[in-house]
């Protein structure tokens, strides 16, 4: 039996303005509203709206045979509520077909799991409520920010009522085994681990537009045969929704590819499964034992993209040192402002990696360098500290 699971994550951060030293103490609004709105407009036009239309077309054409998974961050949903209700509506329309499973994550797309477990739990629950509110379903499968995963995370999610968790199929932990099976973390009973097939996912995300690749051009037909012929129960193709139209611009043919892929997969007799389908239908193959957190980010696939250097560590440490005061204040606005500063992108912009990973950061970061990003972030944090001091 051959199955495939298509999973797309979607997220937009609330980027900060170039908050300078002279603003500390009197300017309590840290975000660049206009920039964030412009980013949202652009990504909506380049990706979200055309992709939603294509996926709707695929559902209409293939009916119950076609399904996939989406995970939207709380910050993105809020941005759409505020600026683009039309785009939010198009996601709601997709959800109404019943062919889309919504996957849980931290509301603020944060690194809370690594820094504060109570805060992590708060954000997981907040996200579940938000998904219920708009899409009428309760997420049962979870994916952490940056696909950060370890045994402990699976255990905690089990306690929170999830029956599945997604993770990177890291070769050092797979040890020669295939990612195309259902796994489980040690000492868990009711939660299964679903692993990304890194090779096949990256064939599309990283190599589709690479003209020097010996498989270039990659057609939907060719890709479907690769998936059909890969060993195992289910191939998990995970990628950001923004791959379409942003990382791979329209002229690469990425939209045509996704438009034809479901048909080509059908031709190869490949079934579509959602994450929850896998948990319910597939047998657990083995234990996937990960002691230290891994991620799907950068060449190291560890935590270094967000907390590899001293600036990132300092920013995180100072932010979470405010947790107690902020939460105890019971001031919803203050809690929200503090929470939005937890979004992982703020820390990702501060990494000082070079070469490919560095280029990728420069492409995504709104700042001229990690150093200016750090200066703005710490200035804003200094202002928030003053507010907290006044509250306590």
């Amino acid at each position, binding site marked *: 039996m051959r199955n495939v699971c298509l999973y797309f994550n979607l997220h937009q951060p609330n980027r900060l303005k170039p908050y*300078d*030293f*002279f*603003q*500390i*103490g*009197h300017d309590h609004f840290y975000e660049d509203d206009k920039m964030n709105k412009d980013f949202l407009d652009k990504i909506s036009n380049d990706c979200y709206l055309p992709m939603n239309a294509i996926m709707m077309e695929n559902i209409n054409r293939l009916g119950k045979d076609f399904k996939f998974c989406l995970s939207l961050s709380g910050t993105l949903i809020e941005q759409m509520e505020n600026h683009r209700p039309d785009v939010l509506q198009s996601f709601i329309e997709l959800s109404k077909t019943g062919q889309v499973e919504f996957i849980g994550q931290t509301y603020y797309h944060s690194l809370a799991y690594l820094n504060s477990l109570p805060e992590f739990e708060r954000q997981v629950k907040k996200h579940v409520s938000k998904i219920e509110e708009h899409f009428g379903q309760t997420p049962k499968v979870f994916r952490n920010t940056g696909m950060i995963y370890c045994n402990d995370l699976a255990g905690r999610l089990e306690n929170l009522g999830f029956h599945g968790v997604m993770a990177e199929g890291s070769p050092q932990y797979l040890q020669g085994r295939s990612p195309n099976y259902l796994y489980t973390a040690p000492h868990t009973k009711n939660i299964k681990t679903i692993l990304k097939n890194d090779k096949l996912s990256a064939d599309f995300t990283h190599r589709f537009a690479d003209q020097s690749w010996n498989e270039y051009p990659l057609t939907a037909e060719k890709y479907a045969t690769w998936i059909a012929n890969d060993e195992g129960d289910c191939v998990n193709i995970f990628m950001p929704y923004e791959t379409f139209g942003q990382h791979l611009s329209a002229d690469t043919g990425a939209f045509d590819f996704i438009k034809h892929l479901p048909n080509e997969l059908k031709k190869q007799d490949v079934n579509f499964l959602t994450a929850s389908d896998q948990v319910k239908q597939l047998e657990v193959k083995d234990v996937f034992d990960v002691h230290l957190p891994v991620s799907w980010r950068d060449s190291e696939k560890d935590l270094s993209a967000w907390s590899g*250097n*001293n*600036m990132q*560590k*300092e*920013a995180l*440490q*100072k932010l979470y040192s405010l947790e107690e005061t902020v939460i105890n204040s019971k001031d919803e606005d203050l809690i929200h402002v503090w929470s939005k500063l937890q979004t992982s992108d703020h820390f990702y912009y501060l990494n000082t990696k070079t070469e490919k990973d560095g280029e990728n950061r420069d492409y995504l970061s709104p700042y001229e360098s990690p*150093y*200016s990003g*750090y*200066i703005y972030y*710490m*200035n804003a*944090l*200094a*202002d928030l*500290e*003053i507010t907290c*001091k006044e509250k306590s």
Partner: protein
Amino acid sequence: MKKLKVLKLGWEFPPLISGGLAIACFGIAKALAKQTDLTIILPKASQDSILNNANIIGLNNIDVEISNTINHSQEEIYKKYNAFARTLFAPGMENISPYPSLEKTTTEGTSSESTHIQTSTHTNKSSETTTNSTFFSRFELDEMYGDDVQQKVVEYAEYVATLAANLEFDVIHAHDWMTMLAGIKVKHQSGKPLVIHAHALSYDRAGPDARGWNYDLEKYGMEIADAVIPVSRYTGTIVEKHYGINPQKIFPVHNGVEPVKTFSEKATFPEKLVLFLGRITGQKGPEFFLEVASKVIAENDNVRFVMAGSGDQLKRIIETGAYRKVGNKFHFTGFLNREKVNKLLAMADVYCMPSVSEPFGLSAAEAAQFGIPCVISKQSGAAEVMQHALTADFWDVELMAKHITDLLEDEELRKKVIAGTFEDIKTVTWEHAVEGIMKAYSYVLGYDVKGDSPAEIEIQQPVNLTTPKVKPIAISSADIQKDDLKKIEGIGPKIESLLNEGGVFSYSDLAHAKFSKLKSILADAGSRYQSHDPSTWAEQAELAAEGKWKTLEKLQDELDGGKR
């Protein structure tokens, strides 16, 4: 009497300002023009470079052809000149910018592809190759230094010499290494004495190990010169000790400080603010500022530090600040325009200048004018002028941190430093500087130079050039009200002098001194003084300060050796 004719060779001049050099040259020229017949030759002058009573020649505004005016091979000593004049490129001189503006952020290390010294094959051969229009094109985009700075320096010398052949002057006055070659050439051609003004040396920029074309040129120029005018005694020491220049011909002259318009503004945050202002390069000691900040922040929750400026050390300092976990209290502004700089000065509670080597340090003087108490390194010219500022060696972060903490917490000390430094600065004028310059002129000419000013100018031996003496706590007893503290029962002559050293001079000082401070002054003086009890001194001093001598007498009758 006939006015002295001075030929000044400059590089930067307003409105082309890249750093402190332009400001200093302008200040000197303005004051000098009042007393002498002044001609200034600059590589580039604009219509705005106008100064009353001075003749400013910008090489960009005239047509000159280089003529071969001297045969360099004739004299042994000028063989060395040839060696410099033929240098088109020397390693280690890429992007040299001795007075870079704050804007020029060096982000990456400079690549040095060439490692050999290039020399031109046809040098000093009359006007066959270049005209000054090609020369001038090198100065486009306001680039006063740049990769081809040697070539600019050499060509400038050629044009200046050609021009000077038709000028009348008594003394040549060259500023820094860029104009030294020109000065040497004109001296040789005219036989007139050469005075070199040292604003900044390669020692300041690159440290004591710096050698190479730049250092050699500075040393050669100052050896040939008839007198050297460093902008401080500190720099004079370097000229003597590091460059081996005869101290007899070194005449330190402090720069003037122009009065600036000041204002004060409340910070928008509740904490106190300590300010560092300047290029973030090794010379300015930014890493010491960060260390000082870490120490102060560890003790004091109510303070922020801000580092304003940009430079090749910025990234390193940012990362170190994060490592030291002071990221929320230690801020960076990057390059700031004048308006923002003034805003910071208006907000700051303490100014800190921990320079490793600072010929003068105009920014500290400006801070003092803004009424900010300053903590400055002893390795600066400013420390000689601002005698009431608190000083420490640049590496002595403990003492610098203590000074800052004291200034933040001790209101009396703070007031004293502010008022004292403010007075110090008042006497530092360009007119005063020109008096010193005239002394150097007199020395090189062998007769008293008198300008319009009737004041007699004696030819003096240069002032003592030993390392500038800085008082441990830089509060000078001059200009401070001093009372006879011995009138306080319990205080004898020895304790009085201990109190003076601790900054307590008047009855009022004593009345407001903290008990703990008095105790520590006594404790620091050794076991002999620890038994003295200062508990009634403040009370007595208050009566003395108010002139209530009768009441004081009555109180003292009740006391036993100053104790109850």
